[in-house]
C-alpha cells in the first residue's frame, strides 16, 4: 500500500457526484452510438432504448448503476513469470509503457524510421529488464506486416521477449479471437488464461460518444473469454470533448462506463479496468494533433483515477512522460514528472506512457531508460516513509550526540537502500551527456538481457495460429 495517496485529491466528494450525475444524464438523454449490432442488442435487452437505424443507445441510469455495483473489479494482471504479477486495486502505483507509436528513433543511426516487428521485440526486451516498468503495452506497431496479421505478429514478439504482463488492443472478431488463442497457448489453455490473465486488451471509444465497430467486436470477444479489458478514452478537450475539464470528464466517463456496460452485459465475469489518456487539443499551430504530458492531462488523469476509485474500478491513466519531447528537443523530456506526480498522488493503479516521444509517435530507447528512472523516483515518492522506533532513530541520535557523524552507524547501513532511491542515470558523469549514457544502457540491455524463453512447442503454436490467420485473410 502506498502511503501518500491517502491524503490528496483533485475532486472533492460533491464534485465527483456532480460529474457522475452529469454522465448519467448524457447517457440517458443523448446516449452513445454503437456501430456493432450484437452490442446494441445486448443494450436493448438490458433495458436501453435502441434505435437500430442511427445505432444510438440511450442508457437508463439504473443500468449503469447496476454495472458499477456488480461488475468484476478485482484483477491481477499476471506476468508470464508470476514474480511480475501486478495486483490492481490494492493501493499501489505501477508503470506501463506507452502504446502504438509508428516510428523508432534508431538506436544505432539516431534517425527516425518506420517501426517493425524487430522493434517490438527489442523494446519488450528492454522493458523486461527495467525494474520500474511493470507492464509492457505494445509500444509501436509492427508496420512491416500487413494490417490483418500485424496484431498477431506483435503478440508473438511480445510473449517471446518479456515475462512481464502485456497489453495490446483487439480489433475485429477474428483477430481478437486469434490473439486470445495465442495468449491461451502461452498460459496453458483458456481456463488457465482466465485464472492468470497474462494479457489484457485496451479498447478505445471514439470521442465524442461513439463505440466503433471493430473495437466493440474486440470487447465482446474479450468478454467471452474473460480477458481483462481496459476501456480507455482518448478525448481532446476543446476538440472532441468540451473545453472545460469538468465537461470533458463527464463525457469521457460516459464513454468509459458505456463501454464497460457492453462488456459487462456480454459477460458479468470479465474484469474491467477504467482508463483515460485524454488531453487538451493543441490550439496553437503546430504539427501535432494534441499536447500530451502537460499539466491539464495530469489533472484529467488525476480526476479520472478518482472517478475510477469512486466506482471501485482499478485504473490506467495517461502520464505523458516524455511524449511532448521531439527528436530535436529531447531535454524537454525532463518535464515528465509533472504528468506523473499528480495521478500518482491519488493512487492511480497504472501510470501509462513510458518511452515514446514526438506526441507519442516515436519510440526512443533512451526515453525508456530515463522514464524508468523518473518512474522509480515517483514510486519512491508515493510510498512515503514509515514512522516507528527504528525510523525515528532515537537511540542513534542520542548515541551520536553533538557534532558526531552517522556514517559509522549500523542504522545507516541498514536503512540506506530502504529509505533512499538510488538513481542510476542521474549521477554526475552520466549527466554530462545523459542521452548518450541512457543509449549505452539500452544497448547494454539489448546485448545481454535474455528473458526466459517460451517452450519450443508454445512458440510453434503461436506461429501456427498466425499461419492459419494469414491463410484465412488471403482467402477473404
Amino acid at each position: 500500500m502506498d502511503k501518500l495517496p491517502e491524503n490528496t485529491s483533485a475532486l472533492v466528494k460533491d464534485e465527483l457526484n456532480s460529474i457522475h450525475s452529469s454522465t448519467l444524464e448524457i447517457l440517458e438523454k443523448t446516449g452513445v452510438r454503437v456501430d456493432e449490432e450484437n452490442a446494441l442488442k445486448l443494450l436493448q435487452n438490458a433495458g436501453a432504448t435502441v434505435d437500430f437505424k442511427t445505432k444510438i443507445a440511450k442508457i437508463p441510469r439504473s443500468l449503469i448503476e447496476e454495472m458499477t455495483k456488480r461488475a468484476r473489479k478485482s484483477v491481477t494482471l499476471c506476468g508470464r513469470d508470476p514474480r511480475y504479477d501486478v495486483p490492481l486495486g490494492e493501493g499501489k502505483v505501477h508503470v506501463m509503457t506507452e502504446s502504438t507509436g509508428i516510428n523508432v528513433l534508431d538506436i544505432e543511426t539516431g534517425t527516425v524510421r518506420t517501426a517493425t516487428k524487430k522493434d517490438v521485440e527489442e523494446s519488450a526486451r528492454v522493458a523486461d529488464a527495467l525494474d520500474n516498468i511493470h507492464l509492457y503495452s505494445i509500444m509501436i506497431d509492427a508496420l512491416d506486416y500487413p494490417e490483418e496479421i500485424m496484431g498477431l505478429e506483435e503478440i508473438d514478439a511480445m510473449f517471446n521477449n518479456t515475462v512481464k504482463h502485456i497489453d495490446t488492443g483487439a480489433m475485429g472478431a477474428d483477430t481478437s479471437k486469434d490473439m486470445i488463442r495465442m495468449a491461451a497457448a502461452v498460459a496453458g489453455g483458456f481456463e488457465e488464461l482466465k485464472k492468470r490473465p497474462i494479457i489484457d486488451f485496451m479498447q478505445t471509444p471514439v470521442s465524442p460518444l461513439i463505440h466503433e465497430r471493430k473495437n466493440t467486436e474486440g470487447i465482446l470477444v474479450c468478454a467471452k473469454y474473460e480477458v481483462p479489458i481496459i476501456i480507455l478514452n482518448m478525448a481532446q478537450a476543446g476538440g472532441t470533448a468540451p473545453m472545460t475539464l469538468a465537461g470533458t470528464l463527464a463525457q469521457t466517463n460516459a464513454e468509459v462506463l458505456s463501454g464497460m456496460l457492453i462488456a459487462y452485459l456480454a459477460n458479468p465475469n470479465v474484469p474491467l479496468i477504467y482508463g483515460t489518456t485524454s488531453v487538451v487539443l493543441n490550439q496553437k499551430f503546430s504539427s501535432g494533433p494534441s499536447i500530451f504530458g502537460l499539466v491539464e492531462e495530469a489533472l484529467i488523469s488525476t480526476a479520472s483515477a478518482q472517478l475510477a476509485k469512486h466506482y471501485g474500478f482499478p485504473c490506467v491513466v495517461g502520464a505523458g512522460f516524455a511524449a511532448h519531447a521531439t527528436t530535436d528537443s529531447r531535454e524537454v523530456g525532463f518535464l515528465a514528472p509533472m504528468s506523473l506526480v499528480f495521478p500518482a498522488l491519488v493512487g492511480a493503479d497504472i501510470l501509462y506512457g513510458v518511452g515514446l516521444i514526438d506526441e507519442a509517435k516515436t519510440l526512443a530507447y533512451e526515453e525508456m531508460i530515463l522514464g524508468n528512472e523518473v518512474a522509480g523516483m515517483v514510486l519512491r515518492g508515493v510510498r512515503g516513509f514509515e514512522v516507528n522506533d527504528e525510523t525515528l532513530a532515537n537511540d542513534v541520535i542520542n548515541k551520536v550526540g553533538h557534532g558526531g557523524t552517522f556514517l559509522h552507524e549500523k542504522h545507516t547501513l541498514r536503512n540506506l537502500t530502504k529509505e533512499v532511491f538510488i538513481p542510476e542515470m542521474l549521477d554526475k558523469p552520466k549527466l554530462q551527456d545523459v542521452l548518450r549514457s541512457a543509449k549505452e544502457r539500452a544497448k547494454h540491455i539489448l546485448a545481454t538481457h535474455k528473458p526466459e524463453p517460451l517452450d519450443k512447442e508454445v512458440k510453434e503454436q503461436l506461429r501456427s495460429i498466425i499461419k492459419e490467420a494469414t491463410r484465412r485473410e488471403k482467402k477473404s
Partner: protein
Amino acid sequence: MSNLVSTLRNEILTFDADRFVETVKKSVDQGNDPVEVVNALTEVLKEVGKKFENGEFFLVHLVQAGDAAKRATVEVLEPLIKKSSQKREMLGKVLIGTVAGDIHDIGKNIVSMMLFTSGFEVLDIGKDIPTEDFVKKTKEFNPDIVALSALLTTTLPVQREVIAALKKAGLRPKVKILIGGAPATAKWAEESGADGYGEDAVEAVRAAKRLMGIRE
C-alpha cells in the same frame, strides 16, 4: 474594396456567425458586387490564416471565422453569383474525406476548413467513406485534387486502396492526390503513390497549392 475588407475583417473577428451573415447580406443589399465581396472575404480569411500560422490566433478562432465565412458564402453570396452567371475565381476543386474503416475526422475537418479559407472549392464527403464512393464522387464532382485522411495505422493502407481504385476507374491521370493524417509521412505518400502530403493543416494547404502550380 479596402473599405469592404476592413468592414468584413472587423465583423468576422467578433466570431458571431449570425451577425456576420447579416453584415454580408447588408453589404450586398447596399450594392456591393457579390464577387467582390467573396474576394474581400478571401482576403480577410487569408489574414486570419496568417494570424493562426504566426501563433496570434488559436485553432478555435480559425475554425469559427471559417464557419462564419462559409455560411455567408453558401447562404448569401454563392446563390447570387450563380444567378448573375458571373464566375468566382477559385484556386481549384478539392474532394476530401476520411477513408473506410476510420471514423476520426477532426484533423480532416481542419484541413477542409483551411482549404476553403484559402480559396479552394471544397467538397467534404465525410468520414469512413467506402473506397467506391471516392471513385463515384470523383466522377461526379470532377475535382483537381482528391485528399485522403486516416488517423489509424490500420486504415493508412486504405489510402493506397483508394488510389488504386481511382487508377482502375481511369480517373488517376485527371486528379492529383493529397494524403494526410497523424500516421502519414512523406515516405508513405511516395510509397502509396500519392502526389503530395501535408504534415499538418497549413502544410496540406501549401501542398495543395503546389499541386495546382500556384506560387505563394
